[in-house]
């Protein structure tokens, strides 16, 4: 090593980074794609790329501790005889019994009920635990129809027809044999221990015209009482929202690619679907074009983490948001207190996503009786309620600063974007400019 022959330092490829290399080695060793839970982990434009402008001479703020900022939301007012009223515009997303343990489902119900909001069943039917502990329960109507029955339809408070989800628009469910316990097998009418594949398409309808008839059937079965939601993944949000409205939905639930799943292929999660931020404005535009904004409610999910995210989603035109991953974290998912056990599983707190394996140290994504006993449904439900309260207070803080006496009064004009991409996706000006990329042929 001399001055005449200076070395370069070792250089790793940006294209073939460490993660990519490890995945190539894993694929070569096993011959099967990687399956995991959670949503997209890649960095995509998100709510962090937006800022609120706050009040100024042209807008005056509301007093933080004296002037009211309403947070209620009514869902299902279009056709349902019994629309539901939530105290906060943050709901708990659909997650199945089977993918989650019974104590975790109970905790979600308890936390939602304490907060005056709804929780949602999943691809595995309705359990007594969640019905009993959920004041307002949304019952998912999925392609698999596991556990589907008219009694549960009638004792639900709303029905959500699932067309897709953000983690895997166009994909079906997956629950591997480790998690098919006796109880899960019985609810799904399947043999114990098999790798269970849920269909990606509904068995008895295809396309928007059929969906309209399917919605009619469900309304007739439930005597037109229940709000009917249609849940779509973030694929073609303008057209899917318009078609859901045309088919007769009371509520559209729109889930971006950061939205989680219990299990699917990593390649699917990271490469199919659009970021949540990119989905909201096209969906709102569809509602506005049809004269249905605020008449058909829009619930947005996928990467909602705090009150600022809530406020931003609502400012872009959503009526409410939904949380899944964040709710699980509030219950105790990926908590560093279990770090030793995460290490034994070859991972670390914050990165654990092998939810399909049923070995969750936190007892949430498992059917193992010993592990699930670690979830105290009452304490975990309280943590979720605390978290929902903080999110609501944060959103109210921002809304008051923007001079709004209801979260729904937030508007795109309250926002600017930090990046060109976010400005284009959210349809708000780049900070410091009046430029909205893509608007007026700019």
């Amino acid at each position, binding site marked *: 090593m001399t001055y005449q022959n200076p070395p370069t330092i070792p250089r790793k490829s940006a294209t073939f980074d460490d993660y990519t290399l490890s995945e190539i080695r894993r694929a070569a060793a096993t011959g099967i794609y990687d399956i995991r839970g959670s949503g997209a982990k890649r960095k995509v434009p998100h709510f962090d790329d937006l800022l609120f402008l706050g009040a100024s001479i042209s807008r005056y703020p509301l007093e933080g501790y004296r002037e009211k900022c309403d947070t209620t939301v009514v869902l299902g007012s279009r056709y349902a005889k019994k629309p539901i009223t939530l105290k906060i515009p943050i709901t708990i997303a659909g997650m199945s019994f089977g993918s989650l343990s019974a104590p975790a489902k109970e905790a979600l119900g308890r936390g939602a009920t304490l907060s005056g909001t709804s929780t949602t069943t999943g691809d595995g039917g309705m359990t007594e635990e969640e019905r009993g502990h959920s004041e307002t329960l949304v019952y998912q109507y999925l392609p698999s129809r596991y556990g589907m029955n*008219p009694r549960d339809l009638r004792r639900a408070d709303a029905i959500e027809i699932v067309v897709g989800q953000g983690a895997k628009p166009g994909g079906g469910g997956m629950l591997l044999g480790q998690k098919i316990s006796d109880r899960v097998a019985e609810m799904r009418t399947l043999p114990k221990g098999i790798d269970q594949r849920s269909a990606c398409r509904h068995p008895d309808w295809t396309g928007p015209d*059929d969906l*309209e008839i399917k919605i009619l059937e469900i309304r007739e079965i439930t005597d037109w009482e229940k709000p009917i939601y249609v849940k779509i993944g973030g694929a073609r949000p303008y057209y899917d929202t318009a078609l859901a409205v045309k088919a007769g939905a009371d509520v559209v639930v729109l889930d971006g690619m950061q939205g989680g799943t219990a299990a699917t292929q990593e390649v699917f999660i990271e490469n199919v679907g659009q970021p949540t931020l990119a989905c909201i404005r096209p969906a709102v535009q569809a509602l506005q074009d049809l004269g249905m904004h605020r008449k058909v409610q829009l619930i947005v999910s996928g990467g909602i983490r705090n009150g600022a995210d809530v406020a931003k989603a609502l400012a872009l035109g959503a009526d409410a948001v939904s949380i899944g991953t964040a709710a699980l974290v509030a219950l105790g998912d990926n908590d560093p207190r279990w770090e030793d056990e995460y290490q034994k599983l070859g991972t670390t707190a914050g990165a654990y996503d092998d939810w399909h394996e049923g070995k969750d140290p936190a007892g949430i994504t498992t059917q193992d009786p010993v592990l699930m006993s670690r979830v105290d449904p009452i304490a975990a439900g309280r943590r979720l309620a605390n978290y929902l309260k903080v999110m609501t207070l944060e959103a109210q803080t921002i809304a008051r600063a923007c001079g709004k006496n209801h979260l729904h009064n937030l508007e795109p004009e309250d926002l600017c974007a930090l990046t060109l991409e976010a400005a284009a996706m959210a349809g708000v000006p780049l900070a410091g400019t009046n430029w909205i990329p893509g608007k007026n042929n700019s």
Partner: protein
Amino acid sequence: MHTTNLATAAISRESDHSPAKYDLARTPLRELNQALHNVQPGSNGTAFEVINPKGSHAVAVGVNAPITVDVRGSVGYYCGGMNSEGTITVHGSAGPGVGENMMSGTIIVKGDASQYAGATGRGGLLVIEGNASSRCGISMKGIDIVVHGNIGHMSAFMGQSGHLVVLGDAGDALGDSIYEAKLFVRGKVKSLGADCIAKEMRPEHIAKLQELLDRAGVKDVKPEEFTRYGSARTLYNFNIDNAAAY
């Protein structure tokens, strides 16, 4: 959309024991289904007749009591959907999804049935006296289906439980990705789907099939004339060497 017929209700019952008659040319669908849902346990008014269905969708859905409904004519989608305990007879043909997710009771279609007949059904008996189209018994979860004629492609796809009996022929990909549903076909099967195989007819299968034929009112047909099909169970747990089967 949906119920727009606001004509005066046309419901008649000639005597206490004659069926209540609903004329869908004059009565909104909503009124019919509400009346079916309002039947109380022990009620004498358990017989209903529906005339002029003219392809209406969602006729007699969500029945929740041991009532009889005779539909005089052909119906559209989802007739008898989620039926519990009711006996529904379609004196005509049925559109897609007849008896979808039915829980119990009986549905009889005198004519043909379109796609997805008995889809995801969890119990009860669905009899189709004519032919059934594609995806008959898709994702079936305990229902018994008897088809007097032929069935179309992809029938009993992902069938989990229950029995599908076909007196005629079956189309392509019968029983694709099947779980524990049992299929009995008397005629030819154009092709079998992934993981579906012909199986031995043991005495318990002969006995079960005879029971199903009797319940469906099928005469002069012997169980021994059928072949049983079911799951080879090779795809129950994922194995990379089976990837080509998907």
